[in-house]
């Protein structure tokens, strides 16, 4: 390769010059204030307040306007939403949501569940800081199985649904939880069997928690459906049974606490009565 003296010397000059400029540039940055802000404890604002409004953070469900349609549950490609509906013992025409769990640990924040929601009950918030020592504690329970909430009836032609301020509900939940709270305990894998044997007897007399009883064994499904044919459309019931099944089979990641889950009928009854 031919190289003239001019290129040779030019290369040396380039090297010296690039050292000169490069080093002065890096030194000038060394002497300036860093542009990054130290997260999390030196930020001028909580980071969530600096996020754009359409940020897809943790999901929040406003139980007051949830119609219990389960559209979000069906939309979720991962299956991290788990909804159970039952009839109110006091008022058979009123359906109540006994379980509405969202596993934020599985959620990929795709927003597919938000779109089909008829009332905007399920929404993304700008909350994202809720690390937990136990990943199971990232399941957010929007329905209390002991105090199920009644489904919302959409008034004809309604276009506005009064919603709690976005983010307030999920923030309350996050703040109420210690980061190192112990995870919920699950039954050992065999445990669902005994309740399966036990379930039909209570299911028949109480004639209500069919969905909870159904998952235990596929066989009693028709039996469970039988007691409540008059109030529940069959396909809805079946959907409820199907959705309940995965929850109960792998020892219920969404179960409130194993004991009530296994004998769901027992605790719900006293709660619904008042």
């Amino acid at each position: 390769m031919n190289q003239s003296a001019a290129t040779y010397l030019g290369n040396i000059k380039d090297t010296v010059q690039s050292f000169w400029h490069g080093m002065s540039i890096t030194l000038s940055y060394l002497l300036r204030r860093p542009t990054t802000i130290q997260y999390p404890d030196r930020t001028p604002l909580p980071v969530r307040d600096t996020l754009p409004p359409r940020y897809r953070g943790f999901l929040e469900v406003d139980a007051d306007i949830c119609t219990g349609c389960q559209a979000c549950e069906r939309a979720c490609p991962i299956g991290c939403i788990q909804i159970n509906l039952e009839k109110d013992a006091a008022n058979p025409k009123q359906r109540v949501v006994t379980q509405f769990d969202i596993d934020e640990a599985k959620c990929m924040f795709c927003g597919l569940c938000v779109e089909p929601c008829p009332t905007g009950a399920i929404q993304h918030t700008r909350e994202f800081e809720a690390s937990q020592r136990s990943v199971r504690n990232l399941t957010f329970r929007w329905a209390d199985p002991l105090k199920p909430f009644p489904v919302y009836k959409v008034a004809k032609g309604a276009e506005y649904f009064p919603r709690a301020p976005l983010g307030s509900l999920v923030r309350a939940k996050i703040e109420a939880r210690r980061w190192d709270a112990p995870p919920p305990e699950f039954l050992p894998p065999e445990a669902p069997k005994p309740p399966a044997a036990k379930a039909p007897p209570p299911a028949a007399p109480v004639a209500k928690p069919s969905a909870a009883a159904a998952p235990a064994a596929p066989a009693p499904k028709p039996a469970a459906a039988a007691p409540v044919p008059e109030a529940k459309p069959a396909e809805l019931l079946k959907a409820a049974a199907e959705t309940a099944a995965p929850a109960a089979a792998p020892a219920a990641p969404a179960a409130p606490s194993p004991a009530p889950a296994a004998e769901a009928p027992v605790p719900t009854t006293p709660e619904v009565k008042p």
Partner: protein
Amino acid sequence: MSALPTPAPARAKTPRLAAAVSIAAAVGLPVGLFALILFIVPVLQPDLLDAFIRERLHHDPATWAWRDAVYAVALVVLAFVFANFAAIFSGILSWWERRVAGRIQSRIGPNRAGVGGFLVWIADAVKLLLKEDLVPADADRILFRAAPYFVMAGFILTFVVLPFGESIAVTDMNVGLFYITSITALVVVGILLSGWSSNSKWALFGGMRSAAQVVSYEIPAGLAIMIPVLMAGTLSMQGIIRAQGGLPWQWFMFRNPAAFVTFFIFFTSQLAEANRTPFDLPEAESELVAGYLSEYSGFRFALFFLAEWGNLWVMAAMAVTIFLGGWQIPFVPNELYGQLKGIGFPPLAWWGLQAASMAIFAVKTIFLVNVIVWIRWTLPRIRVDQMMSLCWKYLVPVSFACFLFTLLWQIAVAAVPALETAMGLGLTAAAVVLAVLFARQTHRNIAAVGDRIDLSNW
């Protein structure tokens, strides 16, 4: 739990204890180490040891059979002190480099463990020591395990002749410079061994690149070292420093225009020999995972990095010794040390001078270490062909030219001694002008974007 329970005043304070511990460590460790070295190195020299044997143990050191045992104990103590100096220096430097890198990249860098994140290097060390020490299944187990010790030995043995002050060097070999150049070759052996024995293509590439690089750059480095040797007429580290003076125009770097150029050649070659960016081809993360140490983990991995960061001190101390006047204190003639010392345990004034010379040496060395860190975060890694052409087409010919020039220059200086002083003054002035220009350029860079110098938020 929300990490941000309340908005603005959520600034968490470093707990008092952690702050106290980190400040104590940041100040106490270096000061304590330097004080220890200052005290222990002159005291454990043969003459004082002999005096100790004569006066305390009441034996004649010339004939007593256990004299060598006392010497051996002294050497073990010295080796322990210097190994710890190297380890702690490289640990603190690893923190400092991350902080500087952060600032240069407009980040903050580690700042969680202790004040300014100072304790992070201790956390790193503990973490690395607790990791499993894996040996790959197909590796050559013996060589794989031995390789870090070669690197470590090649690095730590340089402390035998590295000076810290007038009398603060473990020993002053008359072939000190030659000893350093040859002992650092052990590092290449270690790198090649680790690359070969890992039985991984990345490690092998890294080892090969390293060998090619170090062997090539030995030549300009060796030639560059010859220039101060020619000017001082000795290979001894202390002898070279004694031939210089405390003021900048008495340093070799400024006394000879060829030495001025050679300083940069030497510095560049040292960077390349230490595999330091921009010459970190042997461990190019983007191409070779981590190069020759890809397969290492735990303690052995830590050894490699200890040697790598510790090498910065060695490189800088070498450059300071042979080009920048070493520990010379301005206006203190070499004879004064000898006059003050007297016989037996030296007086306090002598210790004061030693401490001052050590401080000067340390300040210069730490300045150069910072320059090396600064270069690392300025320049990108060069390609293999660029690395080779830089060495063979630029550094080697130029250092040959400098070598020849120095030969003639020494003849000229012997005839006209004022030439050296004039050149020293002239080059020092030129260096000052360059520094001022550089500062102005930096200031302009800052002002050009409407920013200002702000050293808060460290």
